[in-house]
């Protein structure tokens, strides 16, 4: 089943939540709608669920226009951000709720509910009430409940945001496993870039109700189409640069420009892992701080003009590249994204490498 957003527009008074969203989710695909608060990602999801009616545009599920179809006839299972289990029902009855509403026989709904609870790793916990389950377990039950009626589409509205970090990682992997196993078309709303990049087939980045970029996670990260995407996905250094022909001079290097330059004086956007740091006794830069992260370490490096940037180095280099060490700083040779120079940038502070 495919899901299509066609020219979807939704306003709340003067606020534009969705501004002509066009997006197609392919059969069996997991697409993540990623963006900051207020970018319209949840509104888009709620339009598919039937909880929001767009001012204009259409939502199509499997080619059928469902824009005006009531929420209870959409055939789209949803997992909510907040815990949404019915407090008066135990886990089994929560999962079986949709089947009960559709008047399926008791035996059938109980066996299906137990089967789904087993699928989400909660076998034998069907008799527990929501208040007897942890947050992660509650969201697993909610996932089983959303899948109980074998819906055409699975909608996930930041289902992991209320959970602690460890549970969040394990549950998102489980969601992906289930999604692949069932081959269900899934729309996953999140503001967590790591979550989006790690589970989605494609990521759609939204800003102010508009689609900024849609693509595979690696494409979004490595080849951001706009400065906003580059900023929003991952950490980014802004290093002052000067455009020379089709190249930009930054940290003493001449690098090719990805796209077109907005002027002569620009900010060059460089990810921490694209910054190279090498020890040099008379180096112009100084390591100010080091934050060990296991496989990598993040260094805060002060340049000759007192400006700072972040660099990610392999974890095993953390001891060698300790704070107080003088270093050379350079950027990996590949096309870089440039934006108009921010007001705070100082033209005179370009570092000589």
């Amino acid at each position: 089943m495919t899901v299509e957003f066609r020219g979807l527009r939704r306003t709340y008074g003067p606020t534009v939540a969705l501004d002509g969203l066009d997006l197609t989710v392919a059969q069996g695909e997991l697409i993540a709608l990623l963006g900051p608060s207020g970018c319209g990602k949840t509104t888009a999801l709620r339009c598919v669920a039937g909880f929001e009616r767009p001012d204009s545009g259409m939502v199509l599920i499997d080619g059928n226009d469902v824009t005006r179809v009531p929420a209870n006839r959409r055939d789209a299972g949803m997992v909510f951000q907040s815990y949404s289990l019915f407090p008066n029902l135990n886990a089994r009855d929560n999962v079986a709720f949709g089947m009960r509403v559709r008047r399926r026989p008791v035996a059938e709904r109980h066996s299906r509910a137990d089967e789904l609870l087993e699928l989400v790793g909660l076998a034998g916990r069907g008799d527990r009430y929501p208040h007897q389950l942890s947050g992660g377990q509650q969201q697993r039950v909610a996932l089983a409940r959303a899948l109980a009626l074998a819906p055409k589409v699975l909608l996930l509205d930041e289902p992991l945001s209320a959970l602690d970090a460890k549970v969040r990682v394990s549950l998102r992997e489980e969601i992906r496993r289930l999604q692949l196993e069932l081959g269900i078309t899934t729309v996953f709303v999140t503001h967590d870039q790591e979550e989006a990049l790690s589970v989605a087939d494609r990521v759609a980045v939204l800003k102010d109700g508009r689609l900024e970029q849609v693509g595979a996670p690696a494409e979004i990260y490595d080849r951001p189409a706009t400065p906003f995407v580059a900023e929003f996905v991952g950490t980014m250094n802004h290093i002052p640069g000067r455009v020379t022909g089709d190249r930009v001079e930054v940290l003493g290097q001449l690098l090719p420009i990805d796209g077109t330059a907005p002027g002569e004086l620009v900010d060059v956007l460089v990810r921490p892992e694209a910054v190279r740091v090498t020890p040099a006794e008379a180096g112009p830069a100084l390591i100010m701080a080091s934050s060990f992260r296991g496989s990598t370490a993040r260094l805060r490096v002060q340049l000759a003009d007192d400006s700072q940037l972040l660099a990610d180095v392999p974890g095993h280099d953390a001891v060698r590249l300790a704070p107080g060490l003088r270093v050379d700083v350079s950027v990996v040779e590949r096309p870089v994204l440039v934006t108009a120079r921010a007001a705070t940038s100082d033209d005179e502070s370009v570092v000589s490498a």
Partner: protein
Amino acid sequence: MAAVTPTAVPVTAAPLPVAGGGWGRRVVLLVAAVYFLVPMVIAATFTVYNEAQGFSLGAYGRILSAPGFVSSFLLSLALAAATIVIVLVLLLPAMLAVRLGAPGLRPVLETITTLPLIVPPITYVVGISTSLREGADALAATPFWQTLISLQDENFPFVLVLAYVVLALPFAYRSLDAGLRAIDVVTLVEAARNLGASWPQVMLRVIMPNLRSSLAGAAFLTLALVLGEYTVAALLGYQTFPVWIVTISGSDGQLSVALSILSLLLAWLLLLTLSRAGRKKS
């Protein structure tokens, strides 16, 4: 100058202050208990003791055989049942609709439901009797006249139900509001709708089961109000239970006080049952 995309700083909630207990609380409880219990004890003593006969439970023995007791009590119970049904059927969907569709109207609804506490009952009765009188004149030539007359049927004066519904609004609203605040109504309703539930199914299978305590509280408060409401019934000329108690007090003071005590005990019993049920659920 080189800059870095800022990262969010985690915010930690400050711990809430914990209320202190101790002697102050006990003193307040004691004073409150004395304030309520002393009149009760004096009233109870009056029902079982008089100087001529000494101690006697006669007043309680006379209750069932007292003329008019059964009919007035049954009438008040029937009026209470009808009032409870109408209050809940009117109020719960309205409160739900406001929460789901127009949260901005909540203060309006709250104000409207508070009005019966502000308007004196006597003003209310004058309004009702004027409406009934002038309505009868205005509707005399229409089929609605019969409806107006049947509203005032002595066997079941539905006009009292309508009046009690208004009087019960402040109490029922607050009880239901407390229940609705305790659950995430919007998410639960959306979850149920997403799973294919129609609106009546949402109401019967999701909202009402999760509001059991609040619904019982609203029903109990309405029952207590109807069993104790005197002004409207008396001034409109109906013999409900409280009106009968006041009537009988002229000829048998002990009996009327005994009945008042029994109805108070009945109310306490109901309240106790409710709070126990609420505790069990939590």
